[in-house]
């Protein structure tokens, strides 16, 4: 079997933005909305990078290059469906309704960034690689047991496919026929380790064979391909067709995080090759060529995006700092006596005008 033939790359727009497939499931209006979102998210991502460099936020993991996958996936879900993503999946979360300033709050360390406002159905972003894939299976499986129509989607990267949790999750989902979709954003790099050092398989999608589930490989930089593929997948999974593994082939345009410098391990030629087909530039070329949006209209959207992102920066910067005593919040449903005495000791220090220090039971 040739995995590249068995799992052909689903593409609707090629790298140059030419239509090479069927886009009948996406209206022009939807494409305009996608362009607007991709623009807003790219603007936010770049602004966040700069804010970190200015020392105004802490470590930030940029998602540039992966917006098409994240928005395409999120757009295919119903509001009740669960989304379980990682630290790089803020684009999907924001598209689902998490406020634009939340990724910034998160990088400033505000605990509030862990609780998304209703009605967003999503777990807080995961840092331990692959752990959320099992949660997605549990959510999906429970929904099935409870007779709910919701499904669960796990978002993770190529590095996550080396983890045991990934394999355990796919196996258990397959055995239980859980309504879960596993979306691997294969961005080619796990920090500094390239895909070929991560696995000897030719594709990630082919791993579906081992679990006897459906596997698909889609161009993750092509929002039309991602959205249309996910729409169909979500429908099948919701109807009881069992779990599906989707490999979205994409590229991490930036660094792993603001603490990383990819020029130390990545060739410039590779970077340029992927940069050409990156999702926003690709969609832009297509929309211009097909006259769905004009240069002027795009410029207006870019202006709007800048305004929204500036507002998000203001919202994040003016968010009230956490009172020191709140370090003890949300450990248990009710605070046990030993923890209460630690909290009281800290509160006493704060009242006395001293900074939070040692406390013991």
């Amino acid at each position, binding site marked *: 079997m040739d995995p590249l033939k068995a799992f052909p790359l689903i593409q609707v727009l090629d790298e140059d933005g030419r239509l090479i497939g069927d886009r009948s499931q996406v209206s022009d209006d939807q494409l305009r909305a996608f362009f607007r979102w991709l623009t807003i998210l790219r603007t936010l991502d770049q602004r966040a990078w700069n804010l970190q460099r200015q020392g105004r936020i802490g470590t930030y993991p940029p998602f540039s290059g992966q917006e098409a996958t994240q928005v395409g996936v999120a757009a295919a879900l119903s509001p009740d469906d*669960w989304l*379980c993503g990682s630290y790089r999946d803020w684009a999907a979360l924001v598209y689902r309704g998490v406020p634009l300033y939340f990724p910034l709050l998160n990088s400033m360390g505000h*605990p*509030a*960034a*862990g*609780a*998304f406002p209703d009605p967003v159905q999503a*777990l*807080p972003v995961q840092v*331990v690689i692959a*752990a959320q*894939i*099992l*949660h*997605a*299976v*549990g*959510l*999906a*499986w*429970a*929904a099935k*047991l*409870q007779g*709910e129509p919701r499904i*669960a989607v796990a978002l993770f990267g190529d590095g996550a496919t080396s983890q*045991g*949790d990934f394999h*355990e*999750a796919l*196996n*258990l989902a397959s*055995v239980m026929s859980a309504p879960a979709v596993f979306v691997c954003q294969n961005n080619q790099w796990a920090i500094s380790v390239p895909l070929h050092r991560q696995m000897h398989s030719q594709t990630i999608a082919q791993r579906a064979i081992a679990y006897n589930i459906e596997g698909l490989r889609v161009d993750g930089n092509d929002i039309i391909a991602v959205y249309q593929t996910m729409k169909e997948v979500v429908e099948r999974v919701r109807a009881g067709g069992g779990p599906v593994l989707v490999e979205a082939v994409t590229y991490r345009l930036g660094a792993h995080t603001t603490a990383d410098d990819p020029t130390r391990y990545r060739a410039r030629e590779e970077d340029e090759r992927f940069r050409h087909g990156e999702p926003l530039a690709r969609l832009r070329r297509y929309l211009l060529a097909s006259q769905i949006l004009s240069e002027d209209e795009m410029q207006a959207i870019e202006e709007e995006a800048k305004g929204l992102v500036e507002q998000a920066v203001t919202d994040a910067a003016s968010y009230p700092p956490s009172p020191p005593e709140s370090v003890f*919040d*949300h*450990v*248990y*449903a009710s605070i*046990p*006596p*030993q*923890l209460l005495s630690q909290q009281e000791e800290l509160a006493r220090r704060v009242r006395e005008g001293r900074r939070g220090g040692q406390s*013991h*039971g």
Partner: protein
Amino acid sequence: MAVLSYLEAIRETLRQEMRRDSRIIIYGEDVGVRGGVFRVTEGLQKEFGEERVIDSPLAEAAIVGTAIGAAINGLRPVPEIQFADFIFPAMNQIIQEAARIRYRSNGAFHVPIVIRAPFGGGVHGALYHSQSVEAFFAHVPGLKVVIPATPYDAKGLLAAAIEDEDPVLYFEHKAAYRSLKGEVPEERYLIPIGKADVKKTGRDVSIITYGLMVSYALKAAEELEKENISCEVLDLRSVRPLDVEAILTSAKKTGKVLIVHEDNLTGGIGGEVSALIAEHALFYLDAPIVRLAGPDVPAMPYSPPLEHAFMVSPEKIRDKARELAQF
């Protein structure tokens, strides 16, 4: 009142709780058709069906990881880890996920799961069917760790664990399953988690312990009564949270404290209990605190003389308590 074994008390509580609350599901390795390798869940799949008592694939991280998801979606999972020795593949899911999701979601999500696992040695279980693992979890904020000592406590603590909104580890000593019997009321009752219990009052020495060691300590105390040494036996019932007040009350009362556990000495629960006493009751003490615990060797050996050497016994407790009384 019915006399039940420790194991029967756990099974009947699971049955009673599952009848009361249809959100409760049990799953784990061999818990369904076989009813568990120790028969704790025997008959439950027959009564509640394959959708509520589920044989899972052999993968501990998956058992706990999916239980977390299922709990967030509104179920009350009671997963079983077949032996506490096999809980380690699930450590990440227990410590980083179950224990922390309330905190890192700023209260948006919580995980009401009860992870049951048989633990402990002295049953000729060898290196990987004998371990005590409670200290690893007692270290982790966000978790509760319960270790019942009697059939009565097994029921009340299990019901409380299931009703708890936070993740609870519920460790069952294998040697207790069939050897311990006691009266267990038919009706439902809860024993609050974090409340210790004085199993025997005494004047001279406080023996602070939990789990199977409570019955060993009671045996030791009974023998020492003949020598006119009066021991108080405090059953911690849960090692996280600890009942600080009960520990200090007993320590202050007798002025002599012997802490007993089967788990390895270093970094064990005994260290925490003795630190609490040293911090808050030092001047009430008439002798240094004594700890009696499993030795600091990597595992419980299979060789009978070596297993015997490892295990804490009523005799070892008696001898330590006597020395302490005579200090």
